[in-house]
């Protein structure tokens, strides 16, 4: 060993054609600067302890991000309430961080609803959204006094029937869709503002007198880069609220602006990196709060502002640590690197160019590389094009900004899903979801007797 230390550090030999018009390498070092630690935890140690790949989430980043969002809104508006969007990341430990910070729960299915109750969230602090609520879901939500956000007329009528049957007065809000000047306009959820459906639904609810209309809800899109669209949405919901006050002398309790704030990820097809272009919480807060404060409510009538932000609160806190399985040269001469994680566990690589950093030091030489996952499927591409140093087998990489949606949309396909680890503010790493096992997967399978045995010659 002593002998070999006198030798020069080895790096894979590289040769590249000098192409004009491509990214030049001068000053782009931040693109592939190694990330050896997350918070104070060594990437290498985490992989040794929990296996590769492994999702890790930084408790510090989650809490700091939440505090930042909370500050942005509370310094601009007197009554603000966040509700954690379960679908974004519903690992219980993560949900509980948000609940500790003061978030209610926002759920979109019976499964998520049960999860929130099980985590100990009081029923009247669980907002029930979504187009698919079964009778069982609705009954349970009515019994728990949960705010039920009505998506369509069929649901409105069904709720009215259940209210009569159960002799209860459910707390409801309606979801409103609208033109906020952005494309595509989400018009499949809720009742439309411009064509009067929303106002009609409000009238049906109030005049029907079986349901208690306590709020108005919208959710104008996803990965929104334009704060001004939220201002438009806030004006339109306020307009409905003021209309209710005027016609029925009734005050609604809250306006729920939903979520959709962009995180710092870079969408495929966008030219500038999301880190530089995504609006800040301050910008979203300024747009929404200014619109509400100027809408014409008297000070005492100002409704509670509810926010269901998911992605922007959790994306940056999440990392995926993985390893290089192999390198190969494609027929056209491009370099390809095969990683031990694919689109099965990193669903978001379909729409983001996730930033990927090597987890060990390299020289400044880089190569353009296609990054593939390990699935035996052609669609398993993590990055079509990344500029990275010459990674070799077993080197580690860190994928950034994966905290939102991956740990809920991941698929169990040909392999088990990896462990999820929380990097605690107590300086310890905590396993919050174990790596799946064959037993986990087969637990729900049933083998008919006639298929119990076989013989192969």
């Amino acid at each position, binding site marked *: 060993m002593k002998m070999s*230390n006198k030798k020069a550090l080895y790096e894979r030999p590289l*040769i590249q054609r000098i192409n004009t018009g491509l990214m030049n390498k001068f000053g782009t070092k931040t693109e592939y600067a190694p990330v050896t630690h997350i918070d104070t935890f060594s990437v290498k140690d985490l992989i040794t302890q929990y296996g590769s790949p492994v999702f890790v989430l930084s408790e510090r980043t989650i809490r700091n991000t939440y505090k930042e969002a909370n500050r942005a809104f509370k310094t601009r508006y007197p009554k603000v309430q966040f509700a954690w969007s379960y679908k974004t990341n519903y690992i219980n430990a993560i949900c509980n961080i948000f609940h500790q910070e003061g978030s209610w729960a926002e759920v979109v299915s019976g499964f998520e609803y049960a999860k929130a109750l099980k985590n100990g969230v009081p029923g009247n602090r669980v907002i029930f959204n979504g187009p698919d609520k079964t009778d069982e879901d609705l009954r349970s939500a009515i019994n728990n006094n949960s705010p039920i956000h009505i998506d369509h007329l069929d649901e409105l009528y069904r709720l009215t029937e259940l209210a009569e049957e159960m002799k209860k007065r459910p707390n409801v809000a309606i979801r409103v869709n609208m033109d906020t000047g952005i494309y595509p306009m989400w018009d499949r959820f809720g009742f439309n503002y411009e064509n009067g459906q929303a106002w009609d639904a409000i009238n049906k609810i109030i005049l029907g007198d079986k349901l208690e209309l306590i709020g108005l809800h919208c959710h104008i899109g996803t990965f929104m880069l334009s704060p001004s669209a939220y201002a438009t949405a806030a004006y339109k919901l306020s307009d409905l609220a003021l209309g209710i006050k005027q016609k029925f002398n009734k005050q609604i309790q809250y306006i729920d602006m939903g979520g959709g704030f962009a995180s710092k990820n870079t969408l495929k097809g966008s030219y500038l990196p999301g880190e530089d272009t995504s609006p800040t919480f301050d910008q979203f807060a300024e747009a929404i709060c200014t619109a509400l404060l100027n809408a014409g409510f008297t000070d005492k009538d100002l409704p509670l502002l509810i926010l269901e932000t998911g992605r922007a609160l959790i994306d940056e806190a999440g990392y995926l640590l993985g390893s290089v399985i192999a390198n190969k040269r494609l027929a056209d001469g491009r370099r390809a690197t095969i990683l031990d994680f694919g689109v099965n566990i990193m669903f978001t690589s379909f729409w983001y160019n996730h930033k990927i950093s090597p987890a060990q030091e390299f020289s400044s030489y880089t190569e353009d590389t296609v990054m593939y996952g390990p699935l035996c499927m052609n669609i398993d591409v993590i990055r079509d094009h990344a500029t990275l140093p010459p990674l070799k087998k077993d080197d580690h990489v860190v994928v950034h900004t994966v905290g939102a949606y991956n740990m809920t949309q991941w698929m169990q396909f040909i392999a088990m899903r990896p462990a999820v680890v929380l990097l605690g503010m107590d300086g310890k790493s905590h396993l919050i979801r174990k790596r799946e096992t064959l037993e986990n997967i087969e637990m729900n399978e049933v083998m008919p007797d006639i298929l119990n045995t076989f013989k192969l010659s």
Partner: protein
Amino acid sequence: MNLLKNLALSDTGFVFNPATGDSFSVNPIGLDILKLLKNGKSENEIRKSLLDAYQTDKETVEKDLYDFFKMLEQLKLTEQ
């Protein structure tokens, strides 16, 4: 493996093929290999030279040299 005879190698890692007008960049170890090839060294000699000069092992050098030579062929920098 024979490198094109008139290939111009610069110590900066800049490589120019006067026959086609293409230019390339190589990292320092790549430049070492090109120089060894230019001096008529065989694949075995190059392998040994790299093992003497760098902290690496036989398998890695074998894999990487194979890939590097394939690239040289693909980039049309070798005598047919």
